[in-house]
């Protein structure tokens, strides 16, 4: 069908004699249809044609935009807006390029605007409905059914517009096919369902659906590549994880050993992109506080985490034992598998005594000695099992970090420990591991972005001003500034500001599409 329209378009543009043939053929169809007109049928068709009114389309678009904002589906929102602008822009330009007048020889019974091919109302409604299907309807059977409903609506509308002679048959078909094609291509390319699923749960955008074919692929890949039989897989700790999809795998026992659990993190292209945006945001807001170099692929992502896991094992730090990397889809999806601390609880729910406090402080001391920083010390990444503290999620570990970053790790660890005890007790224990000068530096460095969001939220909920209390106890120290200015930061900020301005200009200059 698309090939037919492209060939008609090229033929009409290159060979004017074909244009008149085509024009006569199309107009004859309209004359036949016009013979069928009756007052009652005309009323019904005018009613159906209301679907193509700008107000109808506007309400549908704004409704969809409102839902997308409510559910914070920013990716879908951007693709939806972009697809609408591209469709309206191209449909208008194509109509100017093709320059086809309205129907000859027949009374046009509906309002129209501009040249007739492609039918812009048909294209506008088609892209809107397809956008709604991809933005609002859960993939699978429901979306499939929705596409048939859309096809039905477009068919009925096209029939009404032909009856009213406001479009030629090819105008209506071209408009509908054009709108549907732009929508399908835009959403499949820029918001694929397996990476940006539409769901109405409370899950984060970073979390991939691990059911269906992806789930089967994971089980098969783990079996083939790690020689482990996965009996069951289940997402875990989703609320504490924003950069990957954490999973618990139940694997079959071996040599008389019972079944056991492994922990896995599934990474996809979307996580690489999210990491890139996160680092760009940090660079703009704070400058190059630390290494903000971006990862270039999912493979590099998992390779780095595998390396940090092995590094911590070499230093005998209480972190998960790595089991290796599993390739799910080459260059697109990888999974890193590691030990699962079965029976461990997050430190915010565990009993924290002096032994646990000492383990936490010693952990930081040993990381300092090993030339490392964890960079994401927060309750969700500290587990306690049988009185033993475990450190998880080592993706952000940095080798040879700045002294500022190491100081922040210490402050964050002390805040986590104080949440379950009190600042005075933690500070007293810390003096056995760190000098007063080091403790003063830690709390001078721990400001704003330096602490992970989860930790800041816990401290806020706690009610006690733990940070102020630590600072009272530590020797006085000027706060460490976290703003770093460089030419790169200035250029990046200017570039992003320009990009935002450009995007806003595109939306504003195409405002009539929405308003």
């Amino acid at each position, binding site marked *: 069908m698309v090939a037919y329209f492209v060939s008609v378009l090229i033929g009409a543009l290159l060979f004017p004699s074909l244009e008149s043939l085509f024009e006569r053929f199309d107009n004859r169809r309209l004359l036949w249809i016009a013979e069928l007109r009756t007052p009652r049928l005309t009323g019904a068709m005018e009613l159906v044609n209301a679907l193509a009114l700008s107000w109808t389309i506007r309400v549908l678009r704004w409704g969809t935009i409102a839902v997308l904002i409510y559910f914070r589906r920013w990716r879908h929102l951007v693709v939806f807006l972009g697809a609408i602008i591209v469709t309206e822009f191209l449909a208008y330009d194509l109509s100017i390029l093709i320059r086809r007048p309205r129907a*000859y020889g027949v009374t*046009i019974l509906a309002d129209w605007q501009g040249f007739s091919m492609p039918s812009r109302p048909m294209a506008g409604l088609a892209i809107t409905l397809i956008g709604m299907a991809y933005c609002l309807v859960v993939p699978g059977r429901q979306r499939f059914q929705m596409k048939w409903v859309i096809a039905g609506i477009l068919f009925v509308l096209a029939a009404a517009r032909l009856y009213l002679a406001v479009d030629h048959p090819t105008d209506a078909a071209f408009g509908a096919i054009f709108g549907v094609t732009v929508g399908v291509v835009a959403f499949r390319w820029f918001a694929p369902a397996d990476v940006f699923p539409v769901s109405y749960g409370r899950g984060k955008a970073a979390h991939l659906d691990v059911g269906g074919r992806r789930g089967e692929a994971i089980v098969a890949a783990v079996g083939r590549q790690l020689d482990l039989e996965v009996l069951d897989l289940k997402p875990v700790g989703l609320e504490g994880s924003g950069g990957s999809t954490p999973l618990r795998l139940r694997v079959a026992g071996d040599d008389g050993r019972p079944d056991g659990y492994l922990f896995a993190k599934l990474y996809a292209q979307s996580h690489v992109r999210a990491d890139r945006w996160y680092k760009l945001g940090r660079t703009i807001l704070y400058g190059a506080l630390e290494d903000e170099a971006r990862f270039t692929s999912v493979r590099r992502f998992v390779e780095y985490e595998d390396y940090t896991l092995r590094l911590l094992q070499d230093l005998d730090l209480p972190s998960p034992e790595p089991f290796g990397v599993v390739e799910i889809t080459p260059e697109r999806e990888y999974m890193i598998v590691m030990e699962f601390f079965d029976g461990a609880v997050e430190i915010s729910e565990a009993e924290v005594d002096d032994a646990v406090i000492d383990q936490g402080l010693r952990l930081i001391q040993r990381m300092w000695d090993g030339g490392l920083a964890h960079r994401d010390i927060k309750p969700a990444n500290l587990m306690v099992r049988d009185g033993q503290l475990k450190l998880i999620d080592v993706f952000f570990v940095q080798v040879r970090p700045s002294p500022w970053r190491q100081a922040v790790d210490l402050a964050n660890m002390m805040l986590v420990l104080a949440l379950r005890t009190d600042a005075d007790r933690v500070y007293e224990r810390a003096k056995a591991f760190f000098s007063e000068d080091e403790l003063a530096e830690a709390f001078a460095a721990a400001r704003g972005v330096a602490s992970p969001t989860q930790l800041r939220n816990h401290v806020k909920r706690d009610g006690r001003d733990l940070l102020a209390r630590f600072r009272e106890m530590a020797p006085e120290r000027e706060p460490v500034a976290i703003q770093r200015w460089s030419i790169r930061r200035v250029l990046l900020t200017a570039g992003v500001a320009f990009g935002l301005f450009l995007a806003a200009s595109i939306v504003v200059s195409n405002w009539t599409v929405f308003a």
Partner: protein
Amino acid sequence: MRRRLTGMAIASVLLAGCSVGTVRSQEATCDAPSGAFPVLVAQAVPSAVLLPCIRVFPAGWSYGGSDVRSGRSRFWLDSDRAGIHAVEVELTERCSVAGMSNVTASSRELGVLVYLEPITFRPYTADRVFVFHGGCVTYRYRFGDAEHAPILASEADEALTFVRRSVLVDLAQSDLGLTLCGAEAPPCVGED
């Protein structure tokens, strides 16, 4: 590969934009009565026996754009001295001439009655209305430069004229074998 394809797609959109601009700049000229634009204008107001068009672009004047829809057709001209959208030409089926002066020449060329709205200065605004069988054309002059307004208005008048609808009807019949129904043509099929 995907980036290359995206780049090609963007380039083709931009190129399409360029050619669209070239096509549009000539659309309302009188020497292209068989073109799609005059036909569209004729379809917008099928009762009008005359259709406005551009005879020639005086130095410093260029085509601004158009908006054609059922019941109304507009196009406008830009000027390097009078500014953008300096003159707008609108065709409708009917228009009000209340409060305007009848300045029709005694010859009443093509049976057209001409009316002029009182002129205002700073900015210079003036409307001239041409009333004829089945239609009405309004020239709206909006010049930022009031000092040279008479010269600019005269240039604009020189640029604009009318073409008879019957010319388009004949061309549609001879070129396409189709009827551009409406004034000076056989009746349309499916009339209420």
